[in-house]
């Protein structure tokens, strides 16, 4: 009887320690998951910022101003434009 009790006690202690360990592991993993979620959010925010930046730099009016002012480009005269129908081009 005493032997069985001792055995059960040992099993109980082992289980308790296991529970503690797994709980600890779960919390650690959860922390890591949380960090990754946060990272994903940050990346999304950065994507938004980059989109904003791309759109700001790529504003048609700005491109047109630089093209006309700095680079001296201009829209070609309609007479010098050839439009090709799509099936002819292939």
């Amino acid at each position: 009887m005493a032997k069985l009790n001792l055995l059960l006690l040992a099993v109980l202690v082992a289980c308790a320690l296991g529970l503690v360990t797994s709980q600890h592991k779960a919390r650690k993993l959860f922390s890591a998951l949380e960090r990754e979620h946060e990272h994903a959010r940050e990346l999304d925010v950065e994507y938004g910022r980059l989109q904003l930046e791309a759109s700001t730099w790529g504003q048609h009016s700005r491109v047109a101003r630089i093209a006309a002012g700095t680079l001296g480009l201009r829209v070609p005269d309609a007479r010098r434009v050839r439009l090709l129908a799509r099936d002819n081009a292939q």
Partner: protein
Amino acid sequence: MTAGSVAAQGLVRLPVWRARVVLVALIGAFSVLTVRAVYLQAVKMDFLQEKGDARYSRVLEMPATRGRITDRHGEALAVSTPVKSIWAIPADVQLKPAQRKGLARLLGVSTRELDRKLAEPERDFVYLKRQLAPEAAEAIARLRLPGIYEQREYRRYYPAGEVTAHLLGFTDVEDVGQEGLELAYQQSLGGTRGSRRVIKDRLGQVVEDVQSIRAAQDGVDLTLSIDSKIQSVAFAALKAAVERHRAKAGALVALDARTGEVLALANVPSYNPNNRAQLSGAELRNRVITDLFEPGSTLKPFTIALALESGKVTPQTLVATAPGRMTLAHYTIRDVHPAGALTVTQVLQKSSNIGAAKLALAMPSEALWGFYDHLGFGRAPQLGFPGAAAGRLRPHRSWRPIEQATMAYGHGISVSLIQLARAYTIFAGDGELVPLTLVKSELAAHGEKLVSTETAGAVRAMLEAAVQPGGTGPRARIIGWRVAGKTGTAHKQENGGYAADKYIASFVGLAPVSAPRVIIAVMLDEPAGEYYGGSVAAPVFAEVMQATLRLLGVPHDAPLEPLPQPASDAPREST
């Protein structure tokens, strides 16, 4: 047995009552504990659980990111990006004078303003500054001041600024739509905030997700039908024209005639939605959709279309317009260029008021009213845009003959520019009135067929004649594509009458005539100096139409030759 012998055996016989007392005391103590335990477990459990939870369990708000708005090619037009707001618990704030000065400088407020906000110790929460730039917020966080906290918020940025201001509208400090499409699509753009319960450890780190009370749903991105390049060209051209003619305001709308998509929608004056410190009502108005005006001659094509549809006239039928004036009741209708007899085509080409009035008077008022009603005049367009104006179209029963006559050339009826542009879709296709959309669709739209294909084609040919030399709008022509359109010049309504020297110049047209793709309507309010639609609005139309057709890659349908210069005395429409 003697006491001595008992002592020798090591045994003392204690009185029985002592054991009883101890037993009773123990039982009593255990009962007290049991009762207390039951009390705590059963009666006070909720309260205690709550107190316990309050020490480590937290409900976190999960903010939903507002959806982005992009143009039809995915170019970002409105993006929310996080900023920090600084808040304080006034009672906890203890600042040294130097710290106070530093904080005020970083917040961009005066020390007095800061003191005023912190002077209410009974309040638990005071915003010191909302929507601070991330760098300033970081600097404040580094100061590690007691009682000062930061909160993450979103701020909306509009990279195109004033170009798309009226169309997109803006959001308030809570990132909730207040105007324009931001307001119209608030439901889907805004998403829904979520919340979840978590366990935090001593360091404030989330260690366990207990339950997700409500998952946050991010706002859905919105893809508009707008082409940001066309929009930019349209805004620039309109702004230049408003400045050149010292007009009070201007509006322009470009439609895809096949799909009913709005390609560009521009208003001048405009404002910068990223910095709305000084805004006036005039700048905020979206004139294309919410402003009404008497369209003037741009309405004549509809009168003529109805006359043709009724079968009573053909484009070659002669209409007597001599001697250039016609009196109905007490009102005289005048033509700027009196002519004898004009064909129906010439009535439109020369923009004869008398011709249009006579054609209208030959039809029953009910038919005219019914046609205008079907064209959508007097009814707010189904755009989902807040504040879309319905316009004014009085019921035909109350019409007097003079009203029927003036309505034929666009007076006594008020419309919005977008209604007018939409009505022109019946001339672009085979007579169908196409429903409009501000959201990308790309599918050919089908609407109600109002006139026959033949009538639509005939009016289109007349509209093309109107922009040839000899018509009122030769400056609307462009190299490489055939255009068709109608000028309009109307006296402005003021105080119930017409202002003698204030005009609204307009032009509505479509191109290319062989297979119409684009409809553009332009309106300038109170141009100073020149005020005819043909000289004020038509050049804007030409500039934007040329750029639009080039950007859309529409094949040429006209020889690429310089345009014949119109005679300097091009006919002007009557007002």
